[in-house]
């Protein structure tokens, strides 16, 4: 079974905003809201780091559990999606989410105060349904990952992601110990 995940390599992120724009471009997320945003911490002093925050597609998605109307569900492959037609905008998933991923944009026609969050590039901001009423879903190919300037943002099949991260970390550890 394939399970998809994101992982931020915080040592790599440079706050270039590539992920933010790539996501906007791909999913046509309107101005005023976003599915991914880079947080800057310890600004201006040693320890300054940047973290790209988005939906992380939690294993036991708290948002899914919290949603009172079953607008959020988790696919077999771990991707957490939502149906905007069902959402009532109660904001409860936003409280439940540890990453602050759900957003409730104001001033967006059709979707006012309706929850939006990252979908692994599976569903764009403006969701479309087929004749049978199912939401049309694209292949999981997150643009924040493929466009990430420094490959700080890892995403994809869990094993693969953790393995890359492990290698990087190990490489760093080794070279530091050996003092190369």
């Amino acid at each position, binding site marked *: *079974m*394939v*399970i998809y*995940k994101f*992982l931020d390599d915080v*040592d790599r992120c*440079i*706050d*270039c*905003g*590539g992920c*933010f*724009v*790539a996501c906007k*471009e*791909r999913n046509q997320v309107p*101005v*005023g809201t976003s599915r991914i945003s880079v947080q800057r911490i310890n*600004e*201006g*002093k*040693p320890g*300054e780091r*940047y973290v790209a925050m988005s939906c992380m597609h*939690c*294993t*036991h998605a*708290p948002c899914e559990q919290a949603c009172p109307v079953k607008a959020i569900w988790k696919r077999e492959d771990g991707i957490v999606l939502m149906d905007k037609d069902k959402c009532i905008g109660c904001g409860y998933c936003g409280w439940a989410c*540890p990453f602050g991923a759900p957003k409730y944009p104001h001033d967006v026609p059709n979707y006012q105060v309706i929850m939006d969050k990252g979908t692994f590039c599976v569903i764009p901001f403006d969701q479309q349904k087929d004749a049978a009423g199912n939401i049309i879903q694209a*292949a999981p*190919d997150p643009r924040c*990952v*493929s*466009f*990430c*300037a*420094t*490959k700080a943002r*890892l*995403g*994809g*099949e*869990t*094993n*693969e*992601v*953790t393995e*890359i*991260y*492990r*290698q*990087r*970390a*190990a*490489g*760093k550890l*080794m*070279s530091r110990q*050996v003092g*190369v």
Partner: protein
Amino acid sequence: MATKGNLIGSDIRMSRRTFTKLSAVGTAAALSGISGVSAYPSKLGDLIEPASAAPSPGVSFVRSICANCSVGCGFYGKVENGVFTGMEPWMTHPINAGGMCSKGAATRETTVSERRLKSPMKKVGGKWVKISWDEALDTIATKMAEARSTSGPDSVMFLGSAKMDNEECYIYRKLAAFWGTNNVDHQARICHSTTVQGLANTWGFGAETNNVNDMRHSKCLFFIGSNAAEAHPVAMQHFLIAQDRGAKWIVADPRYTKTASKADIFARFRPGTDIALLLGIINVIVNNDWHDKEFIKNRTIGFEDLWEVAKDYTPEVAEDITWVPADTIRNIARTLYENKPSSVYWAMGQTQHTVGSNNIHLDAILQLVLGHAARSGGGCQALRGHDNVQGSTDMCLLAHLLPSYYGLSEKGRKHWCDVWGISYEEMQSRFESDEFMHKKGFTVARWYEGVIMPESQIDQPHNIKVCLVWGEALNSVTMMKRQNEALDKLDLLVIVNPRSSPAAALPTRSDGIILLPACTSFEKEGSVTTTGRQVQWRHKIIDPLWESRSDFVIYQQLAAKLEEKTGLAFKKYFTYSRMEDVWPELRAGMLVIGMRQDPERLKRQQEHDTSFDRDTLWSDALQEYWGLPWPCWNDKHCGTPILYDASKSVHKGGHDFRVKWGNTVPENKWGKHVGESMLREDYPVPQYGYGYDTAEIERALADNEPPTARGKARIWIWTFVDPIPIHREPIESPRPDLVDKYPTYDDVPFQYRVPAPYISNQRARRDIVNEYPTVLTTGRQVEHMGGGAQTRGTKWLAELQPDMYVEINPKLASRIGVSTHKIGITDEYVWVETLRGKCKVKAYVTEAVNEQTAFMPWHWAGWFEGKSYEDRYPPGTAEYVLGDSCNIICVDGYDIHTQMQETKVCQCKIYKA
């Protein structure tokens, strides 16, 4: 790492179960040649070969290259029935592996933006009216001809752009030559002219010696005056890989930048004191006997002269000048020495100074002394700005050079006359006189003086009457008040740009401005050169939108009009049907730098992108390097990825220091080294590069020798005012005592046709610190590019970075009454005032700058001294976000050799608005 897993912890729970690998991921990884640290996982199945995989009719994927910075990132443009509908990552592009920063990722939005200039326009009676292309070109040609007949050819100023493709830059430079003027220049003047000056005079060529991928091999990265994380984001991919592999990072900068956040050692130094810092480092290196004596002896001249200067710059002396603690200086020196090879990185932070050329010269000296020059993982990385600024520099859209760095001398002129098929005499007749044919023209840095200074005070008979602002952002040039005066005084102002650009809105005049809508880089094809000298082919994604036309087309149409109006022959020299038609001329003429690639080879490389190794950029399949970095000596040569690398055979990209100043040291005013040999081998120096002759190149290659010979690098440059760099205080300095001790240059009567005061300005402002206590420095925001007309007019980028601001330290903030409740941007406005004027900007409170320093980004326009001039833009073309321009207030200092503007240091005072 375990900690990280746990922290995401109870919620994400990185599963430890084994999953079957998604086969597509495996294939993608294998196909794209990714392994280890550079790998990324993603389901890429159909992205690997989008063109062939595109199933739906009417959909195609076009390879293209980002048109923002010089890293040269590739991407696929998705075209559906002729409409640019999306972007896909080019995962197998050897430089960026799909990665793009915010500017690059917004390319589609930028290209199709509603805020573009849609048709030619003219300002009549204070109103903008639409006109036809024919009327526009006719008016321009008529006015130019008029100016020519009344005031001579030098009354027209040609400002060009690094945003144009190589072919177009070349045509533009050629057009200026055929018009008969040297008043042609573009933003490379205010970007890296000092790099070219400093490096070329040290070891032969003025470009980055390696490329960003090669920096993976570096063991120590020394950033001084470069904030790569904001200016060259994707290059950071490679720099960070080097770090993952154990490289040390040193960042010396007045600010704690995003780049500094990755550093092992951060040295905060006072703007404008790079030389003292570097000399301090060299002092420690030599004192500890850490210099590479072998290398110095075999491959350089002038080391003893260096020591004469450097011995006085002990770390303690340097500390007093630079703010950097002596121990940090020692630490930097040790780290550079212990981690071989180290490489040096700089951008505008070092170039834009009155001592810019010297800064760069000293960077090169540092590498020579350490013996880290001329090798993989070492060298000097001058990180260029615009996507094709290396190319436009090579094409020498410059007031003092002809394409491929040929001088304005008779020899250089004749070479190009040969290539262009025009007689030297006819060329001569087009100029004001023989004198003006060889005299350096006005530069972009001070062109406006040619308009407003009395004719008696400038070094040409008449004022400039017509100015073509062809893709140049005037808010990137300092002294905007004087510039505005010039814009208002011109007979005709022509602006050619995909956007109306602030240049159209700055002048208050009600007539005499013509705007031509150029198309963007994605509506035409052509070649662009990255910062690493790699040439990449940019395919056309869509046809020009609205009424826009490509510069390539506009030049030819303008040339035809000029022939009509002036009677001079233009048409036969300016007729090309495709971009490729320009290349035979380039290949024949650009011998000095060996720019002899061929579009077909460039396109073929892109078909075989997966065969290039990401570390070396070598393709086994093609037996050549990515982008055929110049010098690429002939049709078979693989390109030279690392300049001066003598460890490789010339056929495999080997090289050596180029001698361009003769075989021996000539007589000089310092009376030193006269007669000393500049060659380290007896191989006769080929006299290549002139008169259309490639035989010498072939002979050298046959002998496996670089056609540039095997010369020695000059630590001591006898043609410079300071043969060895010495510290000189900036024009405006916070240290009057140091101004007395380290004064700037003597005044220069004429520099690029204008008088250039140095010491007189500095003396007059000796005690400026009393009234203007804060050092002001400027720089970039990652979301914006250059003058910002494109990026501020792109909605995603405007949303991401909507503010012009001044960064101030919390202590300064609380002193002037700005709330320090939160770190970051505030809603409070402050005035930043200098002797030139003032800007009203938001306060950004951060410890990134210290109490004595303030920082402003320079991409902003649309406000002038606190007042918006949005109403002067042609309707619907103003950028989404506007702000005051810091170049209104930057200082009037210029590099002694190249007239590079000094934007990085002046004194200001800041107070609440």
